[in-house]
């Protein structure tokens, strides 16, 4: 029972900082937050970029705030997330190469 409730699935377990798993976890978390912002319709408020109010009802300040959140998340998803994924792949390939060189028969968890 303890095992069932207490142990987080592997994907949610905290990984070592800047390890491939850590990078992938961060990429997934950012993408999930962006998806929520997108589904909440925050994209509509980006009209503030050209000086147009996002919503007359919500007013300038709140519209601009929502737009800023969306734009920041979008840029992070488009620019940073692929970098995190690529970096994870580079690390995995690098580790695989080093492991093979050091111990051709070793089998280990490279992602950690």
């Amino acid at each position, binding site marked *: 029972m303890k095992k069932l409730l207490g142990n987080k699935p592997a994907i949610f377990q905290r990984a070592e900082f800047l390890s491939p798993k850590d*990078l992938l976890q961060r990429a997934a978390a950012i993408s999930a937050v962006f998806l929520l912002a997108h589904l909440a319709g925050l994209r509509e408020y980006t*009209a503030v970029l050209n000086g147009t*109010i996002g919503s007359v009802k919500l007013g300038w300040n709140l519209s601009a705030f929502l737009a800023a959140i969306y734009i920041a998340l979008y840029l992070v998803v488009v*620019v940073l997330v692929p970098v995190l994924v690529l970096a994870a792949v580079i690390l995995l390939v690098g580790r695989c190469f080093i492991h093979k060189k050091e111990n051709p028969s070793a089998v280990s968890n490279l992602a950690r």
Partner: protein
Amino acid sequence: MKARIKRLLAGLAALAVAALIWLPCLHFLFTRPVAQFRQEQGLSPKATQLAARHLQLWTDPALRQVELEKMRVSNAEWDFMGRGYLVWSLANMALRNPASQPLYLQTMDQIIDETLRLEQQEGMCFFLMPYAEDRPYVMQPAHSLFLDGEIALMLASRRVIEEKPEYRPLLTERVNAMTERFQKSRRMMLESYPDECWTFDHGVALDAMKMADYLDGTDHSALIHDWIAMAKRRLEDPKSGLLISTFTTDGTPLIGPEGSSIWMVAHSLQLLDEDFARDQYQRARKELGAITLGFGYAHEWPKSWPGQPDIDSGPIIPGFNISAGSSGMALIGASAFQDDKYLASLAATLDFAAFPSRTHGRLKYCASNQVGDAALLYAATLGPLWEKVKSGKKP
């Protein structure tokens, strides 16, 4: 400890390498063949989708009200210019796609009639920014070349597609009034706002006169020739060679060359003086246009004449000095002068940074607004109307 530092360094190095790989590739996600934006014949997919959204706005009054209200909170001019760009786009679309001409003509008439009604009912300041009422116009009775020029060009564009007898006297009246004021003005500089003249508005007004010549057999060629000679003499920034944006009625510069104006000015000059137009475009491209990592954009001011951000420039992105207003209008310039490399890179930026939203085949850019999207539609469709008028064959 040593292993930890080694792992951190490896992680940072991987991030750096990944960034070096990804950033130059990012534009591939957004770059499409230029025909996706503008085609020589027919309508591009983007033009079709943008047009569908605009046609929806003009068949759904509630939706239109919401969009116009959002713009008018910032700038009443945008409400008016959105109408102009849409009418001019529909005229080009009617020539590109004759099968849909009845729908386009109906929408053009609806826009023109409503605009004329509002102008008559609410007065000319309805479509102007509040400072139009701060002091009297120098030339009396007060007229705004901004309104007269764009309305005249809307009427003329509609008539080029198909004659509408009711619009003929309305066009003649506007053109005659503008001609009279040009003759009255010592320097051929007419106001859009009190003692504030815009090169943009002069270009549009002269285009309307040229089209009136084509439609009604009048001859404004001497006036157009004289105005261009005056502009070359008095309105060029000596350093960049670009036309300045704003000046007083005695020719004193108010605002230097601006990206949010010059791209459209160069396009409007195409109908008046092709060589001068191309020269202005090439100078604007050199002074204001840029492509970084495959993304095209434009600055608002040349280095020789920096300015302050305003309602036309939109927010300026620091570092690169990217102006949303100038970058959007640069699509009109690049499309008009068939600068395909720049056009494709600008279109990539549009899809990257303007947040396109598609529903049921209708496209809008969330970071834009109705006037911005109408200007984009114009960039995606312009060409046939100017060509038809330049060909000189009457309808």
